[in-house]
C-alpha cells in the first residue's frame, strides 16, 4: 500500500517539475493534450481493463462533455465551472440509463452497439447546426478562470489540466484497490462465481460505464475551455479507436498504463511527422502487434522484455565458456 503512495508522489513531483525542464512552449502545449488524453484513456481503462467491457463510442461522451460545456458557456453565458459540472452530471446520467440495455450485450455485440452509439452522437453534433454550429464547429468558448487567474496560456492550462489528471488518477487508484475494484476483477475472472457471491455484476458494470462516461465528459469540458473551439471531427470513430489503442498500448487494467499509453500516442504523431502519410499504417500495425505480442501493454510487456533480454545475456557468457 505504501509503495502505491510513493509511486503516486513521485508522479506528482514529476508533473510539478516538468514545466521547469521544458523550455519549448510547444512541448508544454503537447503535454496539455497528453493530460486530456490521459484522463480519457483512464476513463476507458476503468471500463475496458477493469470491467472488461469494450466501448468504441468513448469519443462520443468526450464530445458531449465538450459540446455541453461549450454551448452553455458560449451561447448561454453560463459560468464555465458550472457548465463543466452540468456536462459531467448529464453525461453520467445518460450513460447510466443507456448502460442497462447496452451492457447486457457481450463481446462483438457490445463493440458494435457502443460504436453505433458513438456514431449517433457524432451525427447529432453535425446535424444540430443551430445548437452545435454543425461541421464548422462552435467558437467563442471562454477559458476557465479561478480567483482572478484566467487559464489562457499553455503553462496555466498545463497545471489546470494536470491537477485534474492527478486527481482522477488518485481517485481511480483508490477505486481499483477497494471492494469495488476487487469485485470488478472478480467479474473479469469469473462472472458466474462473482454473481453467486452476491456481486451485482450488471449494476457494477453500468456504474463503471457511467463513471467512465462522466470522467470523459469532464475531459471534454477541459478540452473545450482550453481550445476555446470545438468541431465534430475531433469526436469521431477514429478518435474512439485511438483511445482504445492508448489503453491497449499502455496496458489494460493499469492506471499508470493509461498515462503511458496516452503520452506515447500523443507524442508519437509528433515524432511520426517525419513519416507524414505513413502514420495511419503505423497505427494499424501498432494495434495488431501490441495485441498479438504484448497483450499486457507496455506496462507489463517492457519489464517482461527486459527480463527476457537479461536472461539471454546471462546465458551468453556461459555459451562462450
Amino acid at each position: 500500500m505504501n509503495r502505491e503512495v510513493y509511486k503516486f508522489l513521485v508522479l506528482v513531483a514529476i508533473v510539478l517539475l516538468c514545466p521547469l525542464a521544458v523550455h519549448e512552449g510547444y512541448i508544454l502545449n503537447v503535454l496539455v493534450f497528453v493530460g486530456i488524453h490521459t484522463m480519457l484513456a483512464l476513463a476507458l481503462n476503468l471500463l475496458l481493463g477493469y470491467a472488461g467491457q469494450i466501448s468504441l463510442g468513448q469519443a462520443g461522451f468526450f464530445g458531449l462533455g465538450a459540446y455541453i460545456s461549450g454551448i452553455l458557456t458560449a451561447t448561454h453565458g453560463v459560468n464555465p465551472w458550472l457548465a463543466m459540472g452540468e456536462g459531467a452530471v448529464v453525461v453520467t446520467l445518460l450513460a447510466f440509463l443507456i448502460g442497462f440495455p447496452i451492457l447486457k450485450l457481450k463481446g462483438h455485440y457490445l463493440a458494435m452497439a457502443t460504436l453505433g452509439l458513438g456514431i449517433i452522437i457524432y451525427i447529432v453534433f453535425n446535424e444540430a447546426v443551430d445548437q452545435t454550429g454543425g461541421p464548422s464547429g462552435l467558437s467563442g468558448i471562454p477559458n476557465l478562470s479561478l480567483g482572478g487567474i484566467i487559464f489562457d496560456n499553455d503553462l496555466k492550462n498545463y497545471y489546470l489540466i494536470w491537477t485534474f489528471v492527478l486527481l482522477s488518477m488518485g481517485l481511480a487508484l483508490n477505486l481499483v484497490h477497494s471492494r469495488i475494484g476487487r469485485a470488478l476483477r472478480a467479474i473479469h475472472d469469473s462472472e458466474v462465481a462473482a454473481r453467486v457471491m452476491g456481486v451485482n455484476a450488471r449494476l457494477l458494470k453500468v456504474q463503471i460505464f457511467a463513471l467512465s462516461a462522466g470522467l470523459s465528459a469532464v475531459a471534454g469540458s477541459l478540452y473545450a475551455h482550453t481550445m476555446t473551439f470545438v468541431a465534430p471531427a475531433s469526436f469521431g470513430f477514429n478518435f474512439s479507436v485511438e483511445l482504445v489503442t492508448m489503453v491497449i498500448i499502455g496496458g489494460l487494467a493499469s492506471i499508470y498504463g493509461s498515462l503511458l499509453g496516452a503520452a506515447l500516442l500523443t507524442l508519437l504523431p509528433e515524432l511520426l511527422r517525419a513519416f507524414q502519410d505513413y502514420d495511419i499504417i503505423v497505427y494499424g500495425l501498432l494495434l495488431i502487434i501490441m495485441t498479438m505480442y504484448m497483450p499486457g501493454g507496455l506496462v507489463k510487456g517492457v519489464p517482461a522484455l527486459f527480463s527476457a533480454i537479461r536472461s539471454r545475456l546471462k546465458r551468453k557468457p556461459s555459451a562462450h565458456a
Partner: protein
Amino acid sequence: MKRLLLPIITFALLSIWAGSCLAASTIKIGALFSVTGPPSFLGEPERNSAKMVVDEINAKGGIKGKKLELVVYDTQGDATKAVQAANRLIKEDKVVAIIGPSTTGESMAVLSVAEKEGIPLISCAAGSKITDPVKKWVFKTAQNDGLAVTKIFEHLNKRKINKVAILTVSDGFGASGREQLKAHAAKFGIQIVVDDTYGPKDTDMTSQLTKIRGSQAQAIVCWGTNPGPAVIAKNVKQLGIKLPLYMSHGVSSKKFIDLAGDAAEGIILPSGRVIVADVLPASDKQKKSLVAFVKDYQKHYKAEGDHFGGHAWDAIMLLKGAIERGGDTPAAIRDQLEKTRGFAGIGGIFTYNTADHAGLAKDAFVLVQVRNKDWALVK
C-alpha cells in the same frame, strides 16, 4: 518494438536538429494541410502546390537573397491536430507566417492561436466567418462561398427561376454553402422549397431527389465535393429529373466529369478560372498566373492543377509579395499583406484592406457548364 522506436526517435531528433541549423539564412513558412483524412482532396493539392511554388521561388534565388523553407504538417481534418500543429509551427519551428488550414472548422480553431501569438495566418478554407468579422492576423485566399452562391442566383434570376431545391453535404463545406444559400435567397427573390442534406460517404441520394421531384422546385442546387455530387448527377439521370442542376465550385475539376460520366452533361457551376484557363481571353489579368500554374502542376505531379491547389499557390505568392515589400518579421508581413492591391492569382484578383481580409470580389468566379465532357464558359 524497441528496435523500431529507437531509429524513429533518432530520425525525428535529427530532422529537428537539421531544421534548426538551417533556420538562420532562410525564411520559415508553416503550412497546415489536411493531407490525409476526409478533406484530403483539399490538403493534397494544396501541399503539392505550396511545395511546388516554394521550390520555384528558391530556384530563382529566393526572396531578397533568402531561401524559403516550407514546414508542412498534416492535420487530418481534425481541429485538435490542427491546433497542436499550429503551436508547434509557431513555438518550435518559429515560422513567420502560416498558410492553411484546409477546412473552415480547422481554420476557426487555429485562428485564435495565430491571433494570440501574433503570427499571420492565410487560411485556404472558404467559410466567410473566418475573416468576417475581420481578425487582425487572419487572411484567406479561398473565395467566400457567398460569392459562388451569388453567381448561381444571378443566373437563376436571368432564367426567371425562383423556386429551388438545395441539397448540401453534411460536412463543413456543405454546411457553409447551405448557410450562404439560405442567407442570400431572399435578396434575389428566390424561395428555397426543399432544403435537404446528404452524408459525405452516402452512395445513394435517390430518396432526397425523389422528394425534390415531388416538390415545386424549378432547379436543384447541390453543394458538395467529390464523390457525392457525381452520385447525385447519376441519380438525377436515373430518376429522369429534367430540372436544371447547379453544383458548387467544390467539384470544379476534371475529376468530377470523370466520375459522373454522361450524367455530368449540362451541369452548371461557379468556378475559379483555373479550369478554363486555356479558353480565357488574352486580356484576362489572371491568365498568366493560371496558365503557369496549370503547366507547372502538370509537369510536377502529372495531374490537373485545380483551384484548391490554387489557394495554396495564392497564399505563398501573397506572402512573397508582402515579404518583398516589407520584411520577414511576422508584424511586417501582416502589415504588408493588408496592403496587397490587385494581385492576380489563381483564385481571383486579391485586394486586401483593413476592413476586408478575404480580398476577392464576385468576379473571382465564372460560371461554367459541362459540355462534351469538358468545361465551357457560360456567357
